[in-house]
């Protein structure tokens, strides 16, 4: 009952006109980011953080969350109409989505994707409501050693799933941790890796690093090619699926919800993995599996539901334990911290009103996206007709504003440029970027919990093994990292996850 009351209070806060406006703007911007091939959700959310810095914490996070799950909806549009995924988790949708477009069923593919996303997202949010209290209370029992061990597991999973080479993933993770250590040491107060520069005493700006590594490097790696593609938006009438399409979609939506929700809870699993495994599930369980790949509606309904259920479920570990499950969630966590909110169990005790307003806004955002996406599909596709030089110039404009306004300092613009070049080099060397962003956010928290644990135990490292929860978690982390030695191979498709 407590939970219901708090959720209702959350709705009261989320339904104020200001917060509704922020959710609406977030949905709009998120859809645009999702539609634009090349600007992923990580860079998109990071790019728009500065826009929200002057807002109140609830409004700011409501808008950023809406941007985040808006990208999942937007990414579908280009997958279906252009055979080009707007973002990684919609990549698998291109197979049947584009085939449906060639069969003249683009409109119903987009409608079913939007409805599936709505259902998956809403059910995952109900899961968040149900899990918030019990997991939050469990989280309060977690001490520094358990917290450190939990983060070890999260990072291990991401490292193990990111890219083709674990060695490169570990390099990426170590780089992120090192960047996070620049500045004043949190315990002793000594400057570290500042090279005598006062500007670095507060550390390297998280937003400038993320915008550089993910956004600028993406632009720097553009190829010479065709200008804007020719897109024909489906007419309003063709947006209505047939009764048969609805009937065939329903089980796929149910399976996609289950897959997306389950995997969203696991740190390190990206939305692309969820949509891929949902497609695999359709191949195995669908009555029409022989039609998959030729324009089967299940191939759109399942993965699109899964990636949205994943996006919303991935907020559960963040809200309840303070663990970001994916790179985009890590950027969101950075935004929480910038607003003075620490995700985790204390969020529900110290900022209960804000936490529940954000959760309520997830329901509202899902409804807004359903209303926005289907009827306005023509508007979204028109974005794709904007010539590339104009889009590039405008994205660069936002990057500069974003980097500058973090500290109102040109220094951060230079930091962004430097990290853009680093990101380009990492892409060229095929070093995954995801572990870096995760460790960048978790680094300070991880170091603090390690040092607190060792101070409690007076320097005895066995503290991590003498406490049952942390011992199990450390063992799981080690098992994940050592899995290649045990020849536990992951499916080939997972190794090519561009989101990772």
């Amino acid at each position, binding site marked *: 009952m407590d939970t219901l009351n708090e959720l209702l209070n959350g709705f009261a806060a989320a339904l104020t006109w200001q917060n509704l406006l922020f959710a609406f703007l977030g949905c709009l911007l998120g859809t645009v980011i999702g539609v634009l091939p090349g600007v992923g959700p990580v860079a998109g959310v990071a790019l728009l953080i500065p826009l929200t810095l002057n807002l109140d914490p609830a409004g700011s996070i409501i808008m950023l969350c809406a941007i985040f799950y808006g990208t999942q909806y937007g990414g579908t549009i280009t997958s279906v109409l252009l055979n080009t995924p707007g973002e990684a988790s919609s990549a698998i949708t291109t197979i049947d989505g584009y085939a449906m477009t060639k069969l003249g069923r683009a409109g119903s593919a987009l409608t079913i994707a939007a409805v599936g996303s709505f259902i998956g997202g809403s059910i995952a949010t109900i899961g968040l409501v149900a899990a918030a209290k019990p997991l939050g209370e469990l989280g309060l029992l977690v001490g520094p050693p358990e917290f450190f061990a939990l983060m070890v597991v999260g990072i291990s999973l991401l490292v193990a799933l990111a890219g083709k080479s674990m060695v*490169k993933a570990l390099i990426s993770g170590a780089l992120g941790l090192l960047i996070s250590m620049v500045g004043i040491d949190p315990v002793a107060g*000594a400057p*570290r890796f500042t090279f005598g520069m006062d500007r670095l005493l507060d550390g390297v700006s998280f937003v400038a690093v993320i915008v550089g590594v993910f956004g600028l490097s993406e632009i720097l790696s*553009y190829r010479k090619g065709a200008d804007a593609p020719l897109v024909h938006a489906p007419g309003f009438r063709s947006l209505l699926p047939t009764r048969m399409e609805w009937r065939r979609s329903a089980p796929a939506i149910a399976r996609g919800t289950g897959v997306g929700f389950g995997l969203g809870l696991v740190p390190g699993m990206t939305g692309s993995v969820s949509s891929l495994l949902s497609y695999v599930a359709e191949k195995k369980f669908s009555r029409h599996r022989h039609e998959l790949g030729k324009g089967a509606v299940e191939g759109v309904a399942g993965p699109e539901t899964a990636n949205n259920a994943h996006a919303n479920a991935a907020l559960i570990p963040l809200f309840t334990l303070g663990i970001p499950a994916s790179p985009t969630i890590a950027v969101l966590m950075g935004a929480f911290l910038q607003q003075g909110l620490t995700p985790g169990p204390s969020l529900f005790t110290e900022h209960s009103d804000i936490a529940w307003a954000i959760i309520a806004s997830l329901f509202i955002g899902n409804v807004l996206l359903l209303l926005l996406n289907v009827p306005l599909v023509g508007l979204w596709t028109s974005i794709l007709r904007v010539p590339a030089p104009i889009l590039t110039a405008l994205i660069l404009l936002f990057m500069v504003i974003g980097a500058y306004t973090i500290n109102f300092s*040109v220094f951060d613009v230079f930091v962004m440029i430097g990290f853009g070049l680093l990101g380009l080099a990492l892409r060229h060397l095929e070093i995954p970027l995801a572990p870096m962003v995760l460790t960048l956010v978790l680094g300070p928290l991880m170091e603090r919990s390690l040092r607190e644990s060792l101070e409690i135990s007076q320097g005895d490292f066995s503290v991590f093994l003498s406490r049952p929860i942390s011992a199990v978690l450390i063992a799981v982390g080690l098992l994940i990292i050592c899995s290649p030695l045990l020849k536990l191979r992951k499916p080939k498709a997972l190794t090519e996850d561009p989101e990772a």
Partner: protein
Amino acid sequence: MTMKSTLTQAPARARPARSVLTGIGAFGALGVYVLISSVDLGLWTSLGPGPGLFPFAMGAVLAAMSVVWLLQELKKPSAAGEGADRGLVIAVVVSLLVLAAVLDLLGFQLSMFLFLMYHLKIRGGRSWLSSLLIGLAGSVGAFYAFNYGLNVALPVSAIPALNLIGL
């Protein structure tokens, strides 16, 4: 002798790509630098772990992984990633550096207008009209939208004459 870009290597090769070796060297050197610096910071104090302990571990991971990567490359060289468009990289990076250098001097509106005109008209080959309209919207428009709409102060010119006319 033909000049071959290190950014455009063929996928199959008998020896590690030069850019890959450079990358491994850079990460290895960074790891070693961090290891040495961390010792100076102090690995352990009377109160427990020192400020250098965590960086020391990360430096060790970085150095060790660089060695493992090098061994992997020597055994089975991998293909370096696809090459970037050098012209684009230079144009974007240099224009951003110039923009950042003059941002405080000329102010946001003028420096961003010039930056956008360069990317739209000179590099992008857009028409004068569309370049001017987008350039003005992205510079003057963005300045007013951020300053008065979002309460986010973008820089004004440090040159009094420009400042006087609102730039």
